[in-house]
């Protein structure tokens, strides 16, 4: 187990560099947009990864509310943090792409707005964790996570009737895509997933360690004689 982590880390690094090479060199250049389009290989996998992490966060929160297992809380905290990071990547790469392609940084359409709302919800989730002064922070956070998850479909509905400028989903949607692009996209996604998994893993270990240290310190505090105040 101890050795698994560095091995996984090296594999991820290799995968990421290969994916980068694939995205920048191997992938065919898009006809209308040109090289700018290559940001696509970062934009889309980040979005998918973020969604996946938020999904895990929701499941872990529900598990925590039912079982009160501290590990579920750690998983929820970690996935929210990393998910926010990936979501931020989407929100940064999107406008970077939009500027040359659409001529504007931002517009209020379905995909953009919903991503922004999602980001806002999970940032507020992290804020709550940071600012809570209660010893029951996990409960509060889990409740908020459930609210956030309930909100997401409603956000989609509510912005449904906006006009959209953003491309339709590649998979399942009507859009068609060069199979080579699709392969490289999936490769990048795999690399991103590994990367996200890696960060989550180390964050998870760190968080568990932190809590263990806290517990030992608390135990020590129990044992050492208390200063009389």
């Amino acid at each position, binding site marked *: 187990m101890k050795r698994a982590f560095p091995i996984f880390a090296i594999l991820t690094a290799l995968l990421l560099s290969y994916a980068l090479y694939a995205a920048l060199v191997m992938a065919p250049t898009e006809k209308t947009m040109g090289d700018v389009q290559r940001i696509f290989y970062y934009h889309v996998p980040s979005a998918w990864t973020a969604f996946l992490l938020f999904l895990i966060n929701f499941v872990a929160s529900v598990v925590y509310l039912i079982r009160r297992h501290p590990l579920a809380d750690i998983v929820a905290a970690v996935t929210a943090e990393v998910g926010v990071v990936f979501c931020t990547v989407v929100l940064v790469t999107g406008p970077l792409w939009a500027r040359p392609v659409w001529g504007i940084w931002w517009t209020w359409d379905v995909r953009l707005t919903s991503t922004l709302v999602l980001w806002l919800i999970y*940032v507020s989730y992290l804020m*709550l964790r940071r600012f809570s002064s*209660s010893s*029951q922070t996990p409960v509060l956070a889990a409740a908020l996570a459930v*609210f956030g998850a309930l909100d997401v479909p*409603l956000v989609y*509905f509510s*912005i449904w009737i906006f006009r959209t400028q953003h491309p339709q989903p590649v998979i399942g949607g009507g859009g068609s895509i060069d199979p080579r692009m699709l392969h490289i996209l999936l490769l990048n996604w795999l690399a991103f997933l590994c990367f996200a998994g890696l960060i989550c893993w180390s964050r998870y270990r760190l968080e568990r360690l932190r809590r263990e240290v806290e517990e030992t310190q608390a135990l020590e505090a129990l044992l050492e004689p208390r200063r009389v105040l």
Partner: protein
Amino acid sequence: MSLAGITGATLAKDLRLEWRSKDAINAMLFFALLVVVVFSFSFDPNAEESRQIAGGLIWVAFLFASVVALNQTWARELRNQALDAYRVSPAPANALFLAKTVGNFIFVGVLEVLMTPLFIVFYKLRALGPAWQLIPVAILGTWALVVNGTFFAAMSIRTRSREIMLPLLLFPISIPAILAMVNATTAILTGELSSRFWIVLLATYDVVFTIACLLLFEMVLHAE
């Protein structure tokens, strides 16, 4: 029965406290009045333009005003730690939640009833769509604001700097509701589009979140 009884008692207590101190309604009223004035100075509305933006205006004013009111009503429970007296009693947590929600609904409702005529006069509003639909929109929209507001206010009293925490938690979750109420109002005022979709969305939002709040409130109340 017990739930209704205790909700009633708590609501009556809240209304009496507010009647005696008038903190919440005072703060709300002051703020909302200023908002009307700010906007009426910031542009010279002709009927067409104001119809376009009045929906947003009204609801932003009410949203901010309810944040102020919500903070006040919970601050009252924290003074002398009166909330602890509720927590040690066998009264169901949801009774407190419902009472607070209904109480704030009444406060914000009173504010709306007072402010709407002002808005109409200042902005020369006349609905081109079916004006009666504004009533369900107002009721559903206000409920959406206060139901989540009450829940998150209860959550934010367990945090440091709780006054600023309430908007931080409330706004992201409320975005679909805000969109729905603003768009519904604009649709009715301009009469160009149907407000059906938005009203249904708002109703769904209300139902979903009222249920979620009722299910989770007990946990939040007793999380210390």
